[in-house]
């Protein structure tokens, strides 16, 4: 069987030339990629690596743009509602506060974490990791923060919040006079920058860059 012959050879390869699929545990010889290429697991289709030209420069620019947008996105009004001359505003933060004050502390904490705290922590981790790579210092801290970032990833839900804003707009449209605020534009901008940043920071390359200094540069 050709397959068993191939796997016998696999076992003899040094560990640096092998790669294991994180989703199905298939063992393969590490492929060499050219810029812009993607390696996928032949058995389950999981993306193994993707090689990007540069991660630090564009990454830092995007992180800073996201951090600049973060505060207006969360604290400027997303929309105003005018009912018989009385106007109310909604910001991401006021949503959390109103829930908290109406006795729904648990939900308020969940909304705060998913829409404000986790996205901010993710950005700060990414900033620290990129800085560690750029200045080539404090890589163990970078590794720790990048691990933390991977645990947080699932829990940042900006895109779901944006859909929530759209659903609310449609629900409120008939009830009273509704106008959209600057906060909404900043929020949408923050979401776009954040998704773009995740595409730029190819995890495999970040892990490699963070572990490089120990053996190669010292």
């Amino acid at each position: 069987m050709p397959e068993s012959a191939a796997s016998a050879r696999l076992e003899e390869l040094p560990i640096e030339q092998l790669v294991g699929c994180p989703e199905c545990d298939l063992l393969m010889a590490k492929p060499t990629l050219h810029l812009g290429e993607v390696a996928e697991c032949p058995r389950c289709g999981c993306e193994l690596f993707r090689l990007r030209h540069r991660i630090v420069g564009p990454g830092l620019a995007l992180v800073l743009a996201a951090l600049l947008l973060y505060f207006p996105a969360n604290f400027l009004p997303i929309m105003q509602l005018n009912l018989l001359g009385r106007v109310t505003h909604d910001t991401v933060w006021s949503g959390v506060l109103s829930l908290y004050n109406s006795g729904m502390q648990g939900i308020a904490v969940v909304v705060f974490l998913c829409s404000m705290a986790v996205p901010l922590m993710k950005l700060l981790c990414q900033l620290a990791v990129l800085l560690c790579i750029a200045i080539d210092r404090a890589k163990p801290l970078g590794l720790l923060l990048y691990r933390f970032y991977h645990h947080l990833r699932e829990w940042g839900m900006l895109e779901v919040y944006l859909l929530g804003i759209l659903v609310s707009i449609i629900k409120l449209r008939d009830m009273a006079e509704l106008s959209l605020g600057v906060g909404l534009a900043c929020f949408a901008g923050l979401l776009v920058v954040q998704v773009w940043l995740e595409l730029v920071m190819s995890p495999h390359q970040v892990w490699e860059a963070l572990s490089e200094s120990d053996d190669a540069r010292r």
Partner: protein
Amino acid sequence: MRAADAGLMVCHECHQLNRATLGIEHQHCSRCGARVHIRRPNSIARTWALLITAALLYLPANLLPIMTVRMLGSGTPDTIMSGVVTLAKHGMFPIAAVVFIASILVPTFKLVGIAMLLISVQRHHPMSPRQRILVFRFIEWIGRWSMLDIFVIAILVAIVNFGSLASVEAGFGAVAFASVVILTMLAAITFDPRLIWDNTEAGNKHD
């Protein structure tokens, strides 16, 4: 060939290969320092525990009101389903469909889907591993979107705040619903997808 058969472990966090050393109980990844295992420990039991808790909370989540809209003093409590029905009655079909999918179909599909994956790993199941990994990836990807209703409540509570004229209050159904979403997301994280492939190659043990 599986990495496990060659005595190699893939790190859960940075995907680095680590050679399993005999006699060391808690081995750490050579690159990132995370704990490495051949398979996630007790993945099946932990996933079942989270899933059963989620299934129990699924009932109050759907039966209790998630929010109450008060207009001029008189309030109508809304459950998840009645909210969708109200939207559809007002002719807002696309948005009713979005809320129905995110709040009713997705949580139900997640509960059934994760249970099915667990059963298929514990007993040899006719579904192909490829189909099962697609179900798993879909569940992992879609899980977060169920938080939609919770965010809508947060926005409505903040903006519809005109005192006795009109106001929105969150209900306890929302607490149960948020718990279901979080628990099923945790269940998807705890489940080790590599188990799906383990029982497809003859003679391999799992657990």
